């Protein structure tokens, strides 16, 4: 679906964030980008989204450049419009594509239901908990039915209980939506729980050190599964190696 090939990015400040990064994403993939702080994970996501351009290599989409709405983006903070209701926040991407409110509402309602927010359509962000705000943010990213969903440490600011619930719900949504997810995280446990492919990055300048595949199908008992423990151990060893 999308190919990043030999991409490098050096900022005008002189910081070389990425060097020679190659990554291929296929349909319905779930890729975790795992690496220490400052290794260029966010930079790579921005290159994929087209918000920034590589100054070496390329990012190419199969079948031409993406249309607005082909990419969903979820940031570490929910970054909702504080003056807009939940449903208006989720309506925003469709509104920016020129849809009328009435025409968009069925899609908005449906996606809110999928993330478990029915009944909160008229609520304002400041009246919601952090976990619910993140659900709104995910709904906003999904409402255009993106081909690829980019998530930049979306659950890092949440408490562990909320994080576990959102991880499980994200997997359910992903299986149903069938889009490709690129999920940036600091957490080995989170990467091992969620991803099909775990991509380990080196410290700056960020390069892809290795990739670890996962055959796990995460469910309610996965965290007790020895296979999960083994995967966590494998990723931990890999990470220790990559950081060295």
């Amino acid at each position, binding site marked *: 679906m999308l190919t990043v090939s030999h991409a490098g990015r050096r900022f005008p400040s002189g910081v070389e964030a990425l060097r020679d990064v190659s990554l291929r994403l296929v349909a319905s993939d779930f890729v975790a980008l795992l690496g220490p702080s400052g290794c260029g994970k966010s930079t790579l996501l921005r290159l994929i*989204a087209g*918000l920034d351009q590589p100054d070496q290599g390329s990012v190419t989409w199969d079948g031409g450049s993406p249309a607005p709405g082909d990419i969903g983006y979820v*940031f570490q903070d929910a*970054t909702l419009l504080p*003056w807009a209701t939940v449903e208006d926040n989720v309506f925003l*991407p469709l509104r*920016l594509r020129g849809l009328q409110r009435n025409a968009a509402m069925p899609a908005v309602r449906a996606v809110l239901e999928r993330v478990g927010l029915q009944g909160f359509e008229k609520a304002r962000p400041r*009246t919601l908990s952090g976990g619910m705000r993140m659900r709104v943010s995910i709904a906003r990213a999904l409402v255009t039915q993106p081909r690829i969903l980019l998530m930049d440490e979306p659950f890092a600011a949440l408490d562990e209980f909320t994080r576990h619930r959102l991880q499980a719900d994200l997997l359910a949504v992903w299986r149903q939506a069938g889009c490709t997810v690129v999920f940036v995280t600091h957490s080995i446990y989170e990467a091992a729980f969620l991803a099909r492919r775990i991509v380990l990055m080196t410290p700056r300048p960020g390069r892809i050190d290795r990739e670890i595949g996962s055959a796990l199908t995460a469910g309610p008992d996965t965290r007790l599964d020895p296979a999960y423990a083994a995967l966590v151990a494998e990723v931990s060893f890999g990470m220790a190696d990559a950081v060295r």
Partner: protein
Amino acid sequence: MKFAPALFGLLALALWEAAVRFGGVPVYELPGPIAIVRAFLSDPAGLLEALGSTLFVTFAALAAAAVLSVAMAMGMSASKLAQAAIQPWAVALQVTPLPAIAPLIIIWVGDPFVALVVCATIVAFFPLFANTATGLASAPPELHDLFRLYGAGRWRTMALLRLPAALPYFLSGLRISGGLALVGAVVAELVAGSGGFASGLAYRILEASFRLQMPRMFAALVLLALAGIVLNFGLGAAGQAILRRRGLV
């Protein structure tokens, strides 16, 4: 507890009255509160009309400052060139003392009412402008990225992101500028009043002081202070109400 300010005020007024009455302070130096109230009651229509005139100038200036400042802040946030061009002039305007330029403005602008409004607008402009400019740039970069991701152009981003984000900043600027517009109107009237333009509260103050009608002068001052307080709290309450309706507080 709730009545403490009122009680304190009454006590202070009583002490003031007693000091003036039994302390032998001549009325042309400091009139007591009762004399001030009497002076007001002897010509309420004249003083209130003057207050109305001053407030009219104040609100016209506040409206003009609001429109100008939002337009200029929007221009500035839309282009770096406009920002470089506008910013130093806005600061120059802010640091220019009104009494120094009011006579010029009154000479340049033929119509005295317009001249007063121009003066008060100059004073009221800067807080509104600075606040609005800050507000227009206050949305987090992630939201700007999101708007870019969905292909939103400059104007949609302005309408759906920058302007709504600027609203709370604009409203707190409006509250500050409200008081400044009143001060600006009075200062301009003081300058203009000596030039023969007679209608606002400041002119009544000047007139009364020339005639040594101290109680009347104090009545006009008290009226002005009350107007300032009501204006400040009124704008504050209106701003809060708007923010509450938007779900921001």
